[in-house]
C-alpha cells in the first residue's frame, strides 16, 4: 500500500534529531510537526521570521501579527525568537537550519529539484523555496512517486524549470525512501506491501536496487 500523507510525514519525522532546527514547507511537510518523537525537542523555523513556531492559537490567542510562512495564525514556544526576513534567510542560506522538508513536482538523479513552476500555468512564484534548497545541507523531499497517470516523478533529468541544482539527497515518496548520489537513485526502503517491481517501474531515473529492500514499519 502506498503511504498516506500521515505516513509520509511519520517516515520523514524519523530523520529528526533532538536539538534540530527544522523548516517545514507547505503541505505534507507541515504534518511532520505532528510526529516529533516523544521526548525529543525540535524547533521549527518559519521563513517569514520566526524560530520556535508553536501550534495554532486558540480563538483567544489569535494574533494578526503572528503568522507562519503559510500565512496561518500560529503561536510561539518558549525559547522562540522573531526577526526580519533578512535575518531569517541569513539562517537559511548560511546553513544554520539542520533539516528542511519540502514538496516537489520532480527530482532527478543529479539531485536537481523542480517544485515551483509549470510552464503555461499561472506562475505564482518561488517564495522561499529556492533559498531553502540552496541553503540546506540536509533536505528531505516528500512527494508522490508518480503522477495519477503513472508518470514517474523521479527522473533522469527534471523536465520542469528547476528550483535548485544538485541539492537533493533524500526523497520520501508514497512508495519508497530513496537516496540520491553519484548520478543515481538508491532504493533504501519500500512502503509496506509495495513491491520492488512497482518502484522500479515507476522510477524513470536510474535506480540502484540492493538485494534486500527493507519495508518501512509504522
Amino acid at each position, binding site marked *: 500500500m502506498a503511504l498516506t500523507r500521515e505516513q509520509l510525514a511519520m517516515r520523514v519525522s524519523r530523520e529528526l534529531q533532538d536539538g534540530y532546527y527544522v523548516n517545514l514547507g507547505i503541505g505534507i511537510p507541515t504534518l511532520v510537526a505532528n510526529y516529533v518523537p516523544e521526548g525529543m525537542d525540535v524547533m521549527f523555523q*518559519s*521563513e*517569514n*521570521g*520566526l524560530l520556535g513556531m508553536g*501550534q*495554532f*492559537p*486558540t*480563538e*483567544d490567542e*489569535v*494574533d*494578526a*501579527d*503572528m*503568522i*507562519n*510562512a*503559510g*500565512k*496561518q*495564525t*500560529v503561536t510561539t514556544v518558549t525559547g522562540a525568537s*522573531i*526577526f*526580519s*526576513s*533578512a535575518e*531569517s*534567510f541569513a539562517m*537559511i*542560506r548560511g546553513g544554520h537550519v539542520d533539516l528542511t522538508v519540502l514538496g516537489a513536482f520532480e527530482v532527478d538523479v543529479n539531485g*536537481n529539484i523542480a517544485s515551483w*513552476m509549470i510552464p503555461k500555468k*499561472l*506562475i*505564482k*512564484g*518561488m*517564495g*522561499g*523555496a*529556492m*533559498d531553502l534548497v*540552496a*541553503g540546506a545541507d540536509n533536505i528531505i523531499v516528500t512527494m508522490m512517486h508518480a503522477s495519477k497517470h503513472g508518470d514517474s516523478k523521479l527522473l533522469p533529468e527534471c523536465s520542469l*524549470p*528547476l*528550483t*535548485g*541544482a*544538485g541539492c537533493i539527497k533524500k526523497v520520501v515518496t508514497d512508495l519508497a525512501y530513496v537516496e540520491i548520489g553519484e548520478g543515481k537513485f538508491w532504493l533504501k526502503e519500500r512502503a509496506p506491501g509495495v513491491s520492488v517491481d512497482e518502484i522500479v517501474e515507476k522510477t524513470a531515473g536510474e535506480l540502484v536496487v540492493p538485494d534486500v529492500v527493507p519495508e518501512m514499519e509504522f
Partner: protein
Amino acid sequence: MSGFNKVVDSYDEALVGLKDNMTIIAGGFGLCGIPEGSIAQIKKMGTTGLTIVSNNCGVDGFGLGILLEDKQVKKMVSSYVGENALFEQQLLAGELEVELTPQGTLAEKMRAGGAGLPAFYTATGYGTPVGEGKEVREFNGRQYIMEESIVGDFAVVKGWKADRYGNVIYRNTAQNFNPMAATAGKITVVEVEEIVEPGELDPNHIHTPGIYVDRIIQGTFEKRIEQRTVRTA
C-alpha cells in the same frame, strides 16, 4: 528645534513627493505588517507607472491589491504573487510585469540597497530560471550568481511603535521585510500604531534606528488575517 521631529499628521503629508513611475519598496508578508495607510494614500493619489518591490501583492480589495484596481502598478518585484484574480488578469493581459525574486534574495537586495552594497553573490537560484543571464562565479568549489541590490524612491513601512526621532520597533512576525524596506528608500515613511515619548524605547532594542526614517505617522489598522487557523483550547 524640530530637526528630529519626523512626525507628520496626515498621509497626504507622508507621501508628498511621490510621482508617477517611481519605485516603491513596501514592507509586509502576505497581509501581515503591511503599510495600510500609505497604500490607501497611493491609491488616493492615483500615481501610476509604479514599480513596487514587495514580497507579495496583497489580495483582491486589500493591501497592495487595491493599487491594481486603477492599474497604478507597472511592475511587481516579488517572491510570491497571484493571490488575487485581478493580478492574474492584468498579468495575462500584459498590463502588469512581474519580476519573480527568491524571498531571501529579495530581502537581501533591500538590505544591500540600504547598506550601500551594490551587489552580492548567492547560491540561491543558480541553475534555475532566476539565474539566467546573471553572472555565475565559483567560490570554494560551488557556483553562485550575482544579484544586484535595490533602492526605492520611497519606502513604505509598517511599525508597531515609534518615537519622534523615527526610531521604530516591530511586533512579532509583522516585522518581516519592514526593517530592510526602511533602509532602502530615498524617502522612508513609517506608519505605526503608537507614537511614544522620546526615551521610552530602549536604545538597545530598536529595530530601525531613526537615521533611516524620514516621516512617521500614527495610523489605524485593519490587520486582516489571511489564514485564520485555530485549535480548540
